[in-house]
């Protein structure tokens, strides 16, 4: 336990190993944008007279195409009606007409029910191109504004500690770690299970940001306190290591309780927020990891100005791992 800080370059390497696949996926495939950010319509339709497995994706696509919605993406699911399990489909198309959405909707529904009997439209969302463009812009602004506001607050909160700006910047760096991880995972999940990045994803991302900073602050608070009561023999490395060990039980326990509530949401919380919760779960674990193994360790790197040694031949003192 007293080697947590010594092994810092191992932790940084581990972070890179975890993040890089996501970044590669992000670079190649990008994010799979939901209708909130790319525009389009999402139909959730229940086929009351059909059991799961009795539907054909291609047929549904053809029906939508015949009504003017070419290139529909169809995903088959199932749902409950009066205790029975029936077939459902979530269909993504371009957005509805701005002038006469109602006729379009009715045409599609009657075409579907001509083929499959009674159908229920469970939900229908349509987002126009202007709105989605505005949402995307606001999303980017929101993330940047959150970062700046937190940086300012942390610098203020740690103004009594030496080098207050360092704490803010290290917290933001750890936060960027979490954001990149979450974006990477979202990109991979988009490719693998077709998960879309929607408004709820953005909510999850911003929550991850705030919880990441939350965790980092708890560790930094200990460092701040231990610096005040510093013994002459203690190095900065010792103080950081000591602070991490002291806050470890709290970090683990808080992580566990949040983990429990999120698991409850995944298992019982219903389909529509499952992706939100999954992203939260990944992001919160990453947030705790980065607060201990990145944010605090970066403070040490900064204190020792280790970057000046990174490009020399000998390994940096105290780091047994290969330099990044």
């Amino acid at each position, binding site marked *: 336990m007293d080697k947590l800080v010594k092994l810092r370059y191992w932790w940084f390497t581990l972070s890179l190993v975890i993040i890089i696949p996501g970044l590669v996926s992000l670079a190649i495939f990008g994010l799979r944008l939901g209708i909130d950010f790319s525009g389009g319509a999402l139909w959730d339709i229940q086929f009351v007279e059909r059991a799961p497995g009795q539907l054909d994706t291609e047929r549904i696509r053809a029906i939508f195409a015949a009504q003017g919605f070419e290139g529909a993406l169809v995903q088959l699911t199932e749902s409950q009606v009066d205790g029975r399990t029936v077939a459902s489909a979530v269909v993504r198309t371009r957005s509805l007409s701005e002038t006469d959405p109602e006729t379009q909707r009715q045409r599609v529904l009657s075409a579907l029910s001509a083929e499959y009997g009674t159908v229920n439209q469970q939900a229908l969302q349509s987002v126009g191109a202007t709105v989605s463009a505005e949402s995307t812009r606001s999303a980017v602004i929101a993330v940047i504004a959150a970062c700046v506001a937190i940086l300012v607050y942390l610098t203020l909160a740690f103004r009594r500690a030496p080098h207050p700006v360092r704490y803010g910047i290290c917290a933001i760096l750890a936060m960027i770690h979490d954001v990149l991880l979450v974006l990477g995972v979202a990109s991979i999940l988009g490719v693998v299970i077709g998960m879309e990045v929607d408004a709820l994803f953005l909510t999850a991302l911003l929550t991850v940001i705030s919880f990441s900073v939350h965790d980092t602050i708890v560790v930094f608070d200990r460092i701040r306190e231990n610096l005040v009561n510093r013994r002459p023999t203690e190095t900065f490395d010792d103080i950081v290591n000591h602070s991490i060990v002291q806050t470890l039980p709290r970090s683990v326990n808080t992580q566990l309780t949040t983990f429990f509530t999120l698991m409850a949401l995944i298992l*019982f919380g219903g389909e529509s927020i499952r992706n939100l919760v999954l992203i939260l779960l990944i992001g919160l674990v990453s947030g705790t990891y980065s607060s201990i193994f990145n944010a605090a360790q970066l403070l040490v790197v900064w204190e020792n100005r280790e970057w000046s040694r990174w490009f020399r031949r000998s390994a940096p003192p105290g780091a047994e791992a290969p330099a990044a």
Partner: protein
Amino acid sequence: MRSRDIYSLIFILLIAGIALSIVFAPEGRWLFNRDVSVRLGLDLRGGIQVLLRAAEPVERSVMQTAAGVIERRINGLGVAESVVQLSGNDRIIVEIPGIDNPEQAIETLRGTGKLEFIDTKGEFLTPGTIVRTTGSPNPVALRPTATVTGTEEITPTVPEGPIYESITDGKDLDLNSVQPPQIAGQSLTNQFAVPFAFTGESARRLEQFTAANIQRPMCIVLDNQVFSCPVVQAALIGGRGEITTSTRQDAEQIYTQLKYGALPVPLQVESSRTVSASLGQGSVDASIVAGLVGLLTVALFMILFYRLPGFLATVALLLYTVISFALYQLIPVTLTLPGIAGFILSIGVAVDANVLIFARLKEELRRGRSLNASIDAAFVEAWPAIRDSSVATLITCTILFMFGNTFGVSLIKGFALTLGLGILLSLFTAMVVTRTFLHVINPLPFAQNPWLYELKDAPGMRHAREAA
């Protein structure tokens, strides 16, 4: 026990009592008949949210008028808790919860308003009554609302034919002829008049009708809702006339209704979200189960791990839950699915504050302080971390909330609101409630047992026991 702790305890019990009385208020009515029923968002109770945009560039004031017209029509649909609000300069957000056929409702909203003069065969109809007319025999409107208590009189009109026969067709109203209210005639009694004129077939019929029905009533109907039933004073030659009232306010109102009874600008459906009521109910059930399971596991974990303080924190957590819901009902906060997720997540935050404090408490006890001193020290030392982390999360919530005002992502607002409220409230439950509970049990003999704090030995407690 110090007297301060007694006051705190009384205060906490009082808050708990108030919160419980709100949560369990009979029929959702609380003090002063305040409505404190649970508000469910569209995704939980079904309904529609739609973003309408003006099809052509218009002034903001025109959009305000359009929003007013839409609001009146929604009220006519008889649904409670609908929302009509302007967004930016050319958009209107409409939310109608809990209706069976949301798409048709939206079509009704976007349709052109219908101004009719109807023949009531001498009958005076109460303003606000919904009537069927030959021009519009099947009104969607179900419930009367906005009434006008005017003393309007109409000069020239002509009723004829069966009851509620439409004399004029709204589309024949010459909007250019509708002018702002003027002082009528030379009379010294201030009267205000709103001139209007019909064209084509409507004009001819109106002239005929008014000529034959002088001194009899004729009703003005807007979107099948009776607006007023003035008495015809003279024949309206060429379908041209004026509505006189005794106050400027009434005249202004009539002017707006005539001029903009129809939507002042065509509206397009830019975005829409529809959720069926059954899907919503499923989500509510799922959320309740998830919330209960989450709360239960957290409680179990806290008690198993932190023993006595964990148990006290669990009680505080229950109080936290009750106060949260009381606040949602009192403010009111409309609960959406992300909102509930925000609440469940905030349970985690509330617990975290306790975890931070208990970790400190254990350290202090280990150092040999008495329980009483340890409690105070733990709270003082844990405070900066709790404060700073709460502020950081609150900052994000504020940004989410502001950002959530953009239409496309308005669901986010609910999440930010419940999470933000939860953080403020958890400061109270952790810093005040748990602390008071700890102080209250402190003098009790059983509390001086290190095992209850997962310690083998606490020197400070030994001294306390020996002293006692």
